């Protein structure tokens, strides 16, 4: 069907750029003109990356988390290498989960995302404390809860973007 007069596949650039660009924009959303005294906004970049990874398992190799995480560190001002390390570990973990013959559905994907968000947020905090900053632990708990509750909405947004990506 690729060479039909009616259907022309979208360009390769479009196919690969939209997921990466949307993740970067989600990471940069922490630069919104708000000033908060506790980390209140969920880690949108991580959620977007997870949504793409769970929706299109074949699209990205595990190493894609390295540059995406590095960009997230740079845009958000975290210690360089923290999101880079954590996201890659998460992506490798999801690869391991994919190789298990589990029945995958919406709920399991949500559980996987919840585990990943929990892991990343707690360890981001650990890294922040390790590099000489951060502070109390409790402010990140509502942030984690928000992120987990909002994940299906992010997956939905990702699905809309995916449909648009595949249309011409």
């Amino acid at each position: 069907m690729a060479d039909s007069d009616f259907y022309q596949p979208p360009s390769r650039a479009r196919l690969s750029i939209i997921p990466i660009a949307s993740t970067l924009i989600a990471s940069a959303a922490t630069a919104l003109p708000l000033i908060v005294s506790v980390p209140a906004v969920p880690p949108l970049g991580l959620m977007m990356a997870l949504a793409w990874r769970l929706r299109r398992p074949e699209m990205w190799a595990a190493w894609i988390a390295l540059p995406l995480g590095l960009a997230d560190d740079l845009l958000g001002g975290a210690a360089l290498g923290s999101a880079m390390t954590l996201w890659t570990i998460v992506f490798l973990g999801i690869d391991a989960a994919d190789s298990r013959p589990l029945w995958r559905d919406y709920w399991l994907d949500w559980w996987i995302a919840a585990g990943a968000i929990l892991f990343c947020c707690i360890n981001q905090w650990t890294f922040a404390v390790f590099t000489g900053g951060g502070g109390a632990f409790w402010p990140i708990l509502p942030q984690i809860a928000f992120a987990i509750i909002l994940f299906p909405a992010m997956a939905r947004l990702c699905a809309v973007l995916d449909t648009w990506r595949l249309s011409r």
Partner: protein
Amino acid sequence: MAPPRHRDRGFSRRIQYGLFFGYVGAAAGIVAGLALVLIARFDPLAFQGIRGLAIDLTAPLSGAGRGVVRGATEVGSDFGGYFGAIDENRRLKAELKDLRRGIIAGHVAAMENVRLKRLLHVIEPSAQPVTVARIVGSDLSGARRYATLGAGRADGVRAGMPVRGPDGLIGRIAETGSHAARVLLVTDGGSSVPLRVARTGQPALGEGHGDGTIELHATALGGQPFRRGDVAVTSGVGGVYPAGVPVAVVTSVSGELASARPLADPTNLDFAAVLPEAIVVPPPPPPTGRHN
């Protein structure tokens, strides 16, 4: 839905190698990432160039919409202000009367202070600001408490300089881009400011708590160092922050610790002045060799 089978190796050598090197790359990347975190711990100013570039890129994004957000916040508090306006009016009038008396006493004290200082030949370091700029945003989801300032190296801003707002101390420059800089707020866990309680002159150390408050530690023993409502100002000890900048007001006391709220409300910052780092004169080197 059955699990996705995309990571099946199949019989193609090319796909097998591709997968294998993908995993090797990811594992190497994790090691490299951990190394970067270690570097960040021991040399917080590493990679200034690329980090500064990222700040420069995101600052205009934040700056554009800041006015709108601030406007919305103010409308909210204006509405709230209508309720209880009479009570507030009465309270404020009483407070004003008290303050007038205080101001007169203050003027007298200031005059006396100037006279005594002239007598003692105390030289005050001038705290002419390096630059005044807008606070454009902050890190919303990270574990560190940073704000972004709309001035950078091109305006003379350097890492380490203290930053104050109209109400009090905001923090210290953590890293700079060429036209924007990141400010480590006093509420961040990595910030500690030498303070003095304005009422008693007792020295204290203010450490950020990461949840919007500052924890005050009394550095001198004995007595009741803090009282609710005490204002803490910078003491100038250590030579980073200039002396006498108000920092926080004590909200609760437990023994020799107190929890304080920063006077420069981080959610409502607009303009900030970057001050030069107070100069520390290094102690003279110990004499070497024998002098007979």
